[in-house]
């Protein structure tokens, strides 16, 4: 805004709030609910006799998540890194150890669903997936470590120092949930990458990461099988789910069959409202719908990018980067998996896929990003 000559000395500091980001978030969440109803109503009717069973639960948690987000967006993000007044503990340290504790707990007492031990039962409230919370912890804790001494990251040893701090949590996640660990790892690397002035060692660490990933794949036979499935999706007996997803995507064509008209959601894609939801979006809304959704995510990422570069300090910038990395990784991996571009791994589509922990955590992160935007000070 232009200042007129008479107003030179009368500076008004105002606080920025990224309403376009807020709008994008609300739109994505609402769109997610529509798609969850579309994909889950048949199965919900079949199993619970209530077509809106999944929709109700997701709407409840998404609603709560939006309230949490609005609340968090009004808290200065810096308090996570400062000692709390009375107990003299930094919230981030507390969160980090809480997550480590929860990850250990889930390994011992977790609820097994579809052969994976990833959930803590909360009785009638449903289930909670601690690895989702750990993603916040990774974003904040990496930022915390980095901003303690940002210049150290210019060297490879500095990067290793960060990795050493994060490794215990990542290690606990990877035991049961390779894909979440992958996302968390990407978040960590992204933050370090942004903080660092030198780039050479990232190439080395990329190779190391690939080597580590390969090792993990060789150690776990089921991961090796995934590669096999990926290569022979049309013939491999376990390629069923991905193949059904491909059927859905391809039968959508350019303009789709229309909202609610998917055939593949009628039991052909198991739990179509979960990780495979993008394939049904493609089937119902076509290439246009899918492209529009990808565009929305890019817009969302662009808004976070704007916040990251305008953040009042490095901490804010790094947190925003972490969140951006989180969302981008999940979106891209999810789409890559359903299109069989990479071997399958279970990653939900942020904002859209069914899952209370996932949507709560994402909205919490968006709250932090909004809070960063709220700390940007402009002049009037």
């Amino acid at each position, binding site marked *: 805004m232009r200042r007129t000559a008479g107003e030179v000395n009368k500076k008004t500091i105002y606080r920025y709030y990224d309403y376009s980001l807020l709008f994008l978030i609300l739109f994505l969440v609402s769109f997610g609910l529509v798609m969850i109803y579309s994909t889950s109503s*048949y199965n919900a009717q*079949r199993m619970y006799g209530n077509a809106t069973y999944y929709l109700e639960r997701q709407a409840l948690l998404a609603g709560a998540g939006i309230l949490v987000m609005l609340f968090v967006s009004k808290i200065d993000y810096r308090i996570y890194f400062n000692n709390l007044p009375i107990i003299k503990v930094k919230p981030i340290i507390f969160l980090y150890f809480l997550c480590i504790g929860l990850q250990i707990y889930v390994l011992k007492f977790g609820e097994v669903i579809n052969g994976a031990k990833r959930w803590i039962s909360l009785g009638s409230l449903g289930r909670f997936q601690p690895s989702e919370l750990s993603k916040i912890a990774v974003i904040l804790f990496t930022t915390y470590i980095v*901003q303690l001494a*940002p210049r150290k990251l210019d060297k490879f040893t500095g990067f290793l120092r960060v990795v050493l701090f994060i490794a215990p949590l990542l290690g606990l996640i990877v035991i049961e949930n390779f894909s979440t660990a992958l996302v968390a790892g990407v978040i960590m690397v*992204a933050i370090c*990458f*942004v*903080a*660092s*002035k030198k780039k050479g060692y990232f190439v080395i660490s990329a190779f190391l990461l690939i080597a580590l990933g390969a090792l993990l794949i060789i150690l776990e036979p089921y991961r090796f099988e995934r590669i096999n499935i990926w290569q022979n999706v049309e013939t491999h007996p376990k390629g069923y789910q991905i193949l059904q997803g*491909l*059927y*859905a*995507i*391809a*039968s*959508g*064509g*350019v303009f789709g069959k229309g909202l609610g008209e998917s*055939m*593949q959601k*009628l*039991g*052909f894609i198991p739990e179509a409202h979960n990780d495979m939801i993008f394939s049904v979006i*493609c089937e119902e809304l*076509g*290439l246009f719908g*899918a*492209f529009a959704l*990808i565009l929305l*995510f*890019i817009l969302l*990422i*662009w808004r976070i*990018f704007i916040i*990251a*570069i305008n*953040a*009042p*300090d*490095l*901490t*804010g*910038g*790094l947190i*925003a*980067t972490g969140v*951006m*990395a989180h969302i*981008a990784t999940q979106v*891209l991996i999810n*789409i*890559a998996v359903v*299109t069989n*571009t990479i071997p399958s791994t279970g990653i939900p589509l942020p904002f859209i896929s069914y899952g209370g922990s996932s949507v709560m955590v994402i909205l919490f992160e968006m709250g932090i990003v909004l809070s960063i935007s709220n700390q940007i000070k402009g002049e009037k």
Partner: protein
Amino acid sequence: MIRNRTYNRRNVFVAVVVIILVSVLLTVRLAYLMIYRSEEYAAMAKELHERERPIKAQRGSIFDRNGVEIATNKPVCTISVIYSQVKDPERVIDVLSDELGLSKEKVRKRVEKVSSIERIKSNVDKEVADKIREYKLEGVMVDEDYKRYYPYDSLASKVIGFTGGDNQGIIGLEVKYEEYLKGIDGTILTLTTAYGVEIENAAEDRIEPQAGNDLYLSLDVNIQKYAEQAALKVMEAKNANNVKLIVMNPQNGELYGMVNAPEFNLNDPYTLIDEIAREYEDQTLSSEKETELLNGMWRNACISDTYEPGSAFKIVTTTAAFEEGVVSLDDKFFCPGYKKVEDRIIRCHKAGGHGSQTFVDGIKNSCNPVFIDIGARVGVDKTYYYYEKLGLFSKTGVDLPGEANSIMHKKDIIKAVELATMSFGQSFQITPLQLLRATSAAINGGKLVTPHFGVSVKSWDGRIIKTLDYEETPEVVSKETSEIVKDLLEQVVSDGTGKRAYLPGLRVGGKTATSEKLPRRTGKYISSFIGFAPAQNPQVIAIVLIDEPTGIYYGGTIAAPVIAELFDNILPYMGVEPEYTEEEKQEYKIGTFVVPDFIGKTKSDAKALFKAYEFDELYSLGEGEVVTEQFPLPGETVDLNTSLVLYFD
């Protein structure tokens, strides 16, 4: 507070660029899948969603020669439940078990079974199904279907045959003409969920079924009915095992009827008929035994069972002898009651012998020594030559499944004794239909026909799809021989062993036979008679076999009257008018007269007038003294021996 430096900002931008680049790549991948691979995958997906449900084609009907429907379809329904759609299982179980007459447990088991669709009962009558439909129970499906139906129940059961669960022919003509009758099944393409539940209002592709073609037979329902009546009557009277009766047109091989008494009910083919069930009343039958009994019940013995034809086979021997010219009508023979052939003594049926006789007498008497003699004159080679010509070594080619062939001696082992027994129809076996066919050739001017039922195949709208042709071999017997044989056989009936088949004016020809069943000396016989009429131009030929009659078992005594009764019924029906000779007119009081007027006459006057005419019986009705009405009416021309009815008032 650490500031956000320029390189930090640049780094974030690099990250965003990477993200956008990957997004673009994935969008390209999506476009590839959704445009380039779209059709291919969509087709594969469609295949997965579509379920083909066949629609049964309506099976063609079978009609007799006059267009009377003898095998048709009637609508029935199949009741099934779809587990996932049943809302009120208890009510469904109650209603279905009540309406369908099934036990609650049985229905419950099916209703509670987790499956996409479960059939409760098929072949349910339409009325019952409509009633069930009115309950509007959720999850209960009523599908209409057709079931084979035979309006005449047991009529010609073993000829027509019946169909199985998939509407396919099991026996008889239903099997033989399967390809014409069955039609082409259609399909309904529906979309289903992964659990096989059909999606309502989903666009359906429907391929209409093509109804089967109709089969038109030479069989005549009325002739078949007369034949069955005659067969059943003699079967009961003689307490016989079974009676076979075949009626054919000797000129072209069209079969008018084929009876295997007892027949079974085509609408209930899996229930043993009383005649069989009676024997096993107190036993529980194993399923193998029951299958065996059912197969026996369904067996068309007229074509599947062979027997020793006995004296009726003398027709063939006679034909061969006249063809060879080794005998003439006036040849003299002497029968002492037996004939010695090599070291064997073969007896004639008449213990004292027939004495001196001509050949004509010999066939009238059915004298074995005469035929041994002429058989020997023909010789083995020529005998087999004529057997071959008369079709006795091959199946008749009748259009029915399961036809048997004859069992004959190997030619090179035949010695005088075998030849002698063969010449009067023993020591080999043929089917009744083979004999009927050979005899037809001998009397129809020498043409060997193929017996058959099927005449034409027409589509449902009456277009002729196929006219069925059958092989005919002309001149297997010369015209002259044929005339002689016809004449001889007419004499057998008019003045020989077959005289109980005599019908005045109808000129029946024929030959009796009494075959002793194997093993011999067990007192089991097959009495048979083969006859045709009218002898000068045979329109119909029939053979009857009475299996194991009790009491008198001579074919001439018990079998000949069956054919007489049959011909008496069917010849007028077939439009064959009797032509009486003068002797017959006198002997049987054949002729007509004009009925006089009785009206107004008193009782005594009427009686006097009645006696003056050749009436049969007088029936007086009413209490009065004067005739007010009469029947037949005055002035009407009636046959001699007609009864008169008078009303007095």
